[in-house]
């Protein structure tokens, strides 16, 4: 029997403002599906970042708070500490999480705060017009690295999933992508698993999603997918980096 | 009327504690009180001090340049604060550690060998209580029985320390009355 498209309840009717070929829309949908499937819409609080997804709350139908740049993990901490029964996720980009919010994400992860972070890594600051991010690839041109990222000058791109996995505190840390259907299935599973760990009050969870930004990369959506596969995936390798189970077995 | 007592010595002599006990006793007796710890440029050189203000009306400035009384537990404290004491104030000098006097003829100087008395009781740690007791006995700033009760309460959670502190109170009172 053919499946017909049905909008998840957690997703609003509003048309998104995202550019053609941008992966935010797919990620929003995956989140909404997971929230519906787990039946947690009525007790979920999302935290919108500063960046392209600052208006993410317009596309969901549950409680939301809007953070300052990089501070979403501190806000999620505040919510979870006073209301451990709420399901809380932060939705952050690479500038937000890996640059200005590096301190907040590392300490929240290290305290083992029981919320979930969706980390959308597309190697650039999108909303401000494609400036260099901590995850910008070596040699990648951006509006603030016109000659390409010079790693002698600004260091290597930061691998957040690996970095956070190095913390001793148990956590669920994974990197996935949503650029093709086969990846999307795995990404959704990872998001669901992350939420499940939170529901069980097990650990902090982070799903890094390798994403595209055709507009700021100056590519068509199709070219952007190819570029991601050829350039990002070899450096930002997909997989599960850490689960609380393996730590507890040691 | 407001009266102020400066307790001064070096860190570890229990200066803040005896100030606290006196403030507590004065409060129990219905006075307004304020206790201000070492919290100023005077803190240098490891000197610990606190000031206790006791009054029958709300206390205005808790910052006092010229206290009425002084309990000096070491020499630098005496040298620093003795000149500031108001005329007719009581100056208790821990003579076990201070060989000099207040160099004032307008104050009531009381020399108490607090460390030696405390040592005879079994621990120099109670020298502060000896000095406090001698001061209260001499100045009558609070009722001695109220002080006794407050010392007891202070050590309520460490009951085995009560006897030696009570003995220190008695010895301090005796030292003050002898003079």
């Amino acid at each position, binding site marked *: 029997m053919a499946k017909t498209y049905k909008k998840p309840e957690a997703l609003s009717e509003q048309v998104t403002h995202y550019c053609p070929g941008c992966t935010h829309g797919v990620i929003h949908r995956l989140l909404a599906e997971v929230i519906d499937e787990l039946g947690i*819409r*009525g*007790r*979920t*609080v999302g*935290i*919108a970042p500063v960046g392209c997804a*600052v*208006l993410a*709350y317009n596309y*969901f*139908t*549950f*409680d*939301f*708070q*809007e*953070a*300052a740049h990089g*501070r*979403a993990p*501190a*806000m*999620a*901490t*505040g*919510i979870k*500490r*006073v*209301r451990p*029964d*709420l399901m809380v996720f932060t939705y952050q980009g690479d500038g937000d999480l890996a640059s200005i919010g590096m*301190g*907040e994400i590392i*300490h929240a992860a290290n305290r083992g705060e029981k919320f979930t972070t969706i980390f959308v890594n597309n190697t650039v600051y999108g909303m401000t017009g494609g400036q260099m991010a901590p995850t910008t690839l070596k040699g990648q041109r951006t509006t603030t690295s016109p000659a390409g990222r010079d790693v002698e000058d600004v260091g290597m791109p930061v691998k957040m999933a690996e970095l956070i996995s190095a913390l001793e505190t148990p956590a669920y840390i994974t990197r996935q992508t949503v650029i093709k259907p086969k990846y999307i299935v795995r990404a959704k599973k990872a998001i669901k698993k992350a939420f499940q760990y939170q529901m069980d009050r097990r650990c902090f969870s982070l799903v890094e999603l390798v994403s595209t930004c055709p507009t700021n990369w100056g590519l068509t959506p199709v070219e952007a997918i190819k570029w991601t596969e050829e350039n990002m995936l070899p450096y930002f390798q997909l997989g599960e980096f850490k689960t609380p189970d393996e730590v507890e077995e040691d | 009327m407001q009266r102020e007592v400066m307790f001064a010595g070096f860190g570890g002599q229990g200066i803040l504690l005896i100030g*606290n006990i006196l*403030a*507590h006793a004065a*409060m129990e007796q219905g006075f*307004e*009180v*304020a*206790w*201000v*710890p070492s*919290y*100023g*440029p005077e803190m240098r050189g490891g000197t610990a001090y606190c000031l206790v203000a006791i009054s029958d009306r709300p*206390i*205005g*400035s*808790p*910052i*006092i*340049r010229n206290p009425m009384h002084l309990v000096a537990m070491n020499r630098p404290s005496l040298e620093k604060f003795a000149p500031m004491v108001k005329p007719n104030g009581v100056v208790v000098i821990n003579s076990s550690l201070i060989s000099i006097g207040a160099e004032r003829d307008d104050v009531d100087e009381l020399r108490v060998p607090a460390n030696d008395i405390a040592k005879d009781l079994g621990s120099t740690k109670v020298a502060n209580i000896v000095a406090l007791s001698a001061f209260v006995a001499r100045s009558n700033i609070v009722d001695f029985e109220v002080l006794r009760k407050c010392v007891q309460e202070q050590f309520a959670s460490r009951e085995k320390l009560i006897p030696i502190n009570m003995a220190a109170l008695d010895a301090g009172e005796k030292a003050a009355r002898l003079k």
Partner: protein
Amino acid sequence: MGKILMKGNEAIGEAAIRAGCLNYFAYPITPQSEVAEYLSRRMPEVGGVFLQGESEVAVGYMLFGAAGCGARVLTTSSSPGISLMSEAISYISSAELPVVFVNIVRGGPGLGGILPSQADYFQATKGGGHGDYRLLVLAPSGVQEAVDMVMMAFPLAEKYRNPVMILGDGLIGQMMEPVEFSDHLKSEPSNKDDWATNGMDTRNRKERNLVKSLFLDAELLEEHNLVLKAKYDRMKQEEVRYEPYNLETDYRALVVSYGTMSRVCKTAIDNMKAEGIEVAMIRPQTLFPFPIDPIRAAAAKDGCQAAISIELSMGQMVEDVERSVQGKCPVHWHGKAGGEIPTPEEVVDVIKSLIK
């Protein structure tokens, strides 16, 4: 329960618990770390939340998140820490969340010192963070009043859905005075279901709540600012608090002073009274809203030759005193900012030099 002798910082912590605030996020900084130490012991006893954040920046947003989902929250800090929290204070003000901040002010600028100061007057009353916002600022002059103001601060923060700041100073934090605690307050904001992100299931409603501060549309941002302004105007109408001192006499000068400094001024005024010189004081208990009308009326009285703002800063509140006096008499400033507190004798000399 009778009076107990307590250090200001510890009393502030206890007062928060009595005020039904069971959520405390903070970062250590002298001279107020005793609040965190005290509450790290007390919060577990009462089933509350104590968390030492990784920085004041993070703490600011922990407060945001927690207040945003309807919890009563507190932080305490001192000047440099409040600077770091100022970003969050701007966001919290815009998002209209009730949060209570206590600033046990120390000397500045920069690292400054750890001694008492009132040099954060501008920061507290005029901004600190970006944008058009106001904090309701309470200024205690002793330990009991600090306790009373903590008890007051939560209902005020909730009434206006606005952050409240208690502006103390190092002396109030460090000194011990007898305090009495009143009964416990009810534990949570009553109208929070209308705005808090506490989960639709919790409030049994179908509409979701949104806590935010972004208004990209000029008209909407204008409207939002007008909503905020209306709150600040209402505070000016309803929340001005001050203590008159010796105001019923034929005074020759009017002192305006708050917090620790005002206690010294009281002693100075008493001493002058004994000499036959009458001086009055208005002690603002709210720094925002500022007691503009009472000060103007007092300064306009026949025989008042000068209004003197006496403060532990290089002249901040004096600008509000000038604004209040509106030329009814000359306005002067006296103060110190290094951490030393002027003595009553010094204050007497200053006042005498300004009157005939």
